[in-house]
């Protein structure tokens, strides 16, 4: 469903140039979930944005549903591919109510029955209709993130690009959202790419994952390999060790991999 090969993304010029993504390749079959984990700043969100067509400065080959993608995307593309952004504050318009945020994509794509769909989407993410006419600043962090998830799902896309979808959620809501995503995936054969810092969330949701550091994929492995301690790269092993909670000694022993 998704094929990315030799993806390179650069920003800026001269002194402030960044080579954010370097030769990244991976394939995600229809109905599968692929995880992206790795260092903060290593290029995970940039990879998702390139697939979603939100970033024109890339080279390489990106295919979605077998079609090669160019720099810009059609409206039909966004009916099939939706993204949940890492920063729900930035992705919700501060002066639009929840109702408007959820209704707008339906209007743009000429879909009817708006009120019923908006309420159903809110209920699916555990918010309910009482939240319909609130503004983003009247919501907690986790409530905003749920609105962002509802908005991405309201068009019933085939591909969901999920950037830290549950990192702003408490574990009970996280469990509800992960169950919801898994349910949608099996009902509609949805394909997900999931960026997360939480290896347990990745293990729960994904089949395979890529570990990124400094713009590169350092290792691609199956979740079974992750579980059974078969990661081979030192960076991956360090990541697994650090996921076991805070420890002063471990913190002192961490090293940078380039």
């Amino acid at each position, binding site marked *: 469903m998704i094929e990315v090969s030799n993806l390179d993304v650069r920003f800026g010029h001269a002194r402030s140039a960044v080579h954010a993504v370097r030769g990244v390749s991976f394939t995600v079959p229809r109905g599968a979930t692929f995880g992206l984990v790795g260092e903060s700043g290593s290029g995970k969100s940039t990879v998702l944005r390139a697939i979603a067509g939100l970033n024109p400065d890339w080279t390489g080959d990106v295919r979605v549903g077998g079609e090669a993608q160019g720099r810009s995307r059609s409206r039909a593309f966004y009916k099939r591919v939706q993204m949940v952004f890492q920063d729900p504050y930035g992705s919700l318009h501060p002066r639009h109510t929840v109702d408007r945020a959820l209704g707008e994509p339906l209007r743009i794509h000429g879909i009817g029955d708006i009120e019923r769909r908006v309420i159903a989407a809110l209920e699916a993410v555990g918010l309910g209709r009482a939240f319909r006419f609130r503004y983003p600043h009247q919501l907690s962090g986790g409530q905003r993130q749920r609105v962002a998830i509802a908005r991405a799902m309201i068009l019933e896309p085939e591909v969901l690009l999920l950037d830290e979808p549950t990192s*702003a959620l408490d574990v009970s809501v996280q469990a509800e959202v992960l169950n919801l995503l898994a349910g949608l995936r099996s009902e509609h054969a949805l394909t997900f790419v999931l960026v997360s810092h939480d290896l347990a969330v990745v293990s729960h949701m994904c089949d395979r994952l890529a570990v990124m550091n400094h713009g590169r994929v350092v290792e691609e492995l199956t979740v079974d390999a992750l579980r059974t301690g078969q990661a081979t790269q030192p960076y991956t092993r360090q990541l697994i060790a650090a996921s076991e909670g805070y420890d002063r000694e471990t*913190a002192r022993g961490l090293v940078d991999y380039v």
Partner: protein
Amino acid sequence: MVDATAPLLDVKGLNVSFRTPSGVVQAVRDVSFSLGRERLGIVGESGSGKSTTGRAILRLIPPPGVVSAERIALSGLELQSLSEREMRTIRGDRISMVMQDPKYSLNPVMRVGEQIAEAYRLHSRAGRREARDKALEMLSAVRIRDPQRVYRAFPHELSGGMGQRVMIAMMLIPSPDLLIADEPTSALDVTVRMQILAIIDDMVRERGMGLVFISHDLNLVASFCDRVLIMYAGRVVEECRASELAAARHPYTRGLFSCLPRIEAGKKTLPTLERDPAWLA
């Protein structure tokens, strides 16, 4: 003004409510706690009032929000009796807060390094050059790999975790007595997270800073904090030592642990919480 025997922070009977189109939201209900030079975690459901509690302490609840409390005292100094100007000084020098939405609290049209340098100059009256060096030093301290580039970057050019680290760098500059950190590491990978926590840990141990650490990462709170408050629907429903969080008694807290996915577990449907109306009583 400073009472050496008073706790660093003493909150008693805090209530916060908001009027919305669908009625009044009682976001915080009768919350009381005190804090010494230690790491206090606050965990709890989304919307349970954690951020609102932190903001109310700093008087950052805009109208129509209504705040009332019997006491909000910093080392014995009642913050509610201070003027807005005095409160600004407290916010600049003695209490820092890392907000849950880092990019929202940065100025979008100013280079991030200049924002850090300016914060330092306001605090220390240092010259431009010194402030610039200090800002670069802070960026490396929070594990930014290329501080020179990031100094010149605008907030939208940073990754989620880089924005979070910039916020932390800014808040640590004044060496506050109290740091309120609202989900400060949720966008960081686990290795960088651990390094940032070690910096905060040092500030608590070496400079006697007090820390309020708001997070829903139960394992992190259990391993990093000294004590934990558990909030549910605006109330503190339980308080325990962090090391005993996994053995907490309240059914809500116990329910939270059962919702956690685990690396070694399979892909079964995750248990979710059955919320009991009796928890509100």
